[in-house]
């Protein structure tokens, strides 16, 4: 396959995928989402609809994921944000990109730091609040101890990125690749 053919294939795939993602976006709210996007309508779907998608339903961080990708920070996604979200969750997105969004997701109070209260919320979501308060405190202390480089008691983005780059087997934010084929 030569370069032009490859490019045509890439563009073709892109449009096909966007078309299919649009189908999913449309079927969540058929009355609101227009089929015709040529006039660039300003349509946003509320968080409640997005987090009920089967791919996100069982995810403990679904609200934070949707909030991180929404432009207004409140969780309503335009179609552009929707496509962005599934792009970052795909397995081919590079780790640096995933790291940026992972940091946003785990930063519950959006102060650009993962502090102790953010970690506590993360742990509670992960274990469905089955850990005792003492255990949660201990784990938070351990995490900060392992990752905090500048010693300010909370994790900045540099600390987070550093921790991820140290460990090559750090796999996160990966949605099943067959999702894209079964769209």
């Amino acid at each position, binding site marked *: 396959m030569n370069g032009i053919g490859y490019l045509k294939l890439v563009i073709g795939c892109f449009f096909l995928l966007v078309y299919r993602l649009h189908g999913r976006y449309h079927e969540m709210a058929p009355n609101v989402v227009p089929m015709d996007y040529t006039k660039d309508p300003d349509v946003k779907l509320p968080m409640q609809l997005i987090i009920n998608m089967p791919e996100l339903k069982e995810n403990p961080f679904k609200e934070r994921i949707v909030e991180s990708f929404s432009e207004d920070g409140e969780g309503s996604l335009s179609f552009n944000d929707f496509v962005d979200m599934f792009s970052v969750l795909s397995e081919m997105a590079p780790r640096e*990109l995933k790291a940026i969004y992972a940091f946003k997701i785990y930063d519950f109070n959006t102060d650009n730091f993962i502090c102790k209260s953010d970690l506590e919320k993360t742990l509670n979501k992960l274990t469905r609040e089955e850990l005792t308060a003492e255990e949660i405190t201990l784990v938070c202390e351990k995490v900060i101890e392992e990752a905090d480089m500048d010693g300010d008691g909370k994790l900045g983005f540099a600390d987070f990125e550093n921790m991820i780059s140290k460990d090559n*087997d750090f796999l996160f934010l*990966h949605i099943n690749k067959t999702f894209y084929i079964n769209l």
Partner: protein
Amino acid sequence: SSFSSHLDCQQADIKYLSGWKQWKRTSSKSLKKVLNEVKELLSYLELWRHDIHSIEGKFGTGIQSYFSFLRFLVLLNFIIFILMFSVITLPSIISKYGIFNSSFAKIPPKNIEPHCTVYKPSGNKGLVYFYTYLKDLFSGTGFLKETSLFYGYYTIDTAWLSNLSYNLPLAYLLATFAYLGLSLLWIIKRSVEGFKQNLVRDEDQFQSYCNKVFAGWDFCITDPNAARLKHRSLQYELQTDLEEERLKQKIADRTMKEKLRIYSLRILINIIVFAVLSGCFYSIYRATVFSQENSNDISNTNFQVNLLLQYLPSMVITLANFIAPQIFSFLIRFEDYSPAFEIRLTLMRCVFVRLANIGVLLFSLWSQISYCATDECKACGYNYELYPCWESAVGQEMYKLMIFDFIIILAVTLFVDFPRKLLVAHCSCKPVQWCGLQEFGIPDNVLEIVYGQTICWIGTFFSPLLPAIATIKYFIIFYIKKISLIHTCKPAARPVRASSSNFFFLVVLLIGLVLAFIPLGISIAHIPSSKACGPFRSFNTSWAVVPDTILGFPTGLQQVLHGIASEAFAVPFFMVTCLIMFYIIALAGAHKRVVEQLREQLVMVRFDPLVCTPKVFIVVSVIRHAEEQQFL
């Protein structure tokens, strides 16, 4: 933009393929497609595929791996049965009944005391009651002893089919080695697959808290049950890690006085464990001796008592296998080890007790068989009066062990698990509710079936059709365990991971197989074979048929075989094998690095927020997936 410039590089890299190379490429692609389709078709034929899949969804990968293990044992036993039947039983039956114009030859044994060869099987004479047949069925005596189930049936030395001669004794011995070798290779093959996965993906030994918190959740989960299991397993992992930390701190804080106390306590507990083991072994020895002495006494014709006596060793072994692990798990608490080490040590002790019990039974059997008071007895090498056909006697013991094991599993499920469930469901008093439903204990269940499989491996030499019984037994046990799991078990508090489970199952099975080699090796090579029955009547020991056959080979081949068996060959062979092993390990490490590098290379563009939006990466993912599926 960087994207289009990268595509230009791609274009320059792609060479125009010549016609031959294109054909090779398309043919290899279509071959891969065909192989994939064949694999998919074969997976539909897999036994219990749907059952195991549904168990995985509801109960997690740890329990699912137990059932996959059970399926593996069913298949293994079936293949061993086919092997033994076609190589040993079928030729015997064909030539004995003269089918296809076959005949057999019985070579009279030379240089052997005549009194050793007298064999009057005590069949049922006169009026035979129905319960005699039942007793014979359960204890392998009477009419069952004369069937092809036991060693004593195979008295043919050569079978003739037109002009082809078939050396049955040699076939018998080689079939034994074949089934042992087949089991070994198959187990190693399965454990290698699990080991490979461990190699590429480093398991939890080095995972830190950060990894568990930030990368712990699997984003592919869409099933609520799987999600619940994942939450539980994450919770358990974090709790275990914290406990290990606490214990490490405690150990570091120990004073000299405390250390002394702990070590002396551990020595004391190990002595107690040793005493418990000795108690088990001695009681098995006494039970076997008592059972053998009294069941040979023909005057005892009471049906129930006789059956009880026959099954006495099995009952004592089962009791020991039940009590000893309880004692071990009680004692280990005082030894103050870390939780992971506690589990492993208890498991090792249980494995040892279960497998050593079989060894003690065989040892006590052999001590009975070889007990010689008179000179005539010493001339035969074994007690020819009580055990004219001692291999069949050993086969009978293994048969009884297997039947009793099956009965116990059935009885425990019917009379303990289901009543317990009914009690918990209908009685709301505190002690019952505190006890609650049982959990599906994977290590205990695995040890149970490994114990059964070890009996099968040892017993197949003495009873060639035993693998058929084992196949049917494990087949039924699959359904029993599945029903028991679904209806009487509560979900596990500590979800177990599949990869570590698989490895543990296969290691324990391997230990069982290696332990089975020992009594078989001694029986074949060291103990004189019985002269009154069986294929090895004319030989000193069962192994003697091999040198005998080699002497019949042409001289050149004999010299080659002697050369291979000598040290001059063995030592360089061993060194070369070690070198090859090191080379393969180094190659595996190199491949792992290449895999990682290729992963990096597959990212087509360097992330640049001005140029690349996240959308591009969906496209790349699709292209890669399409390439894998051969659409491109």
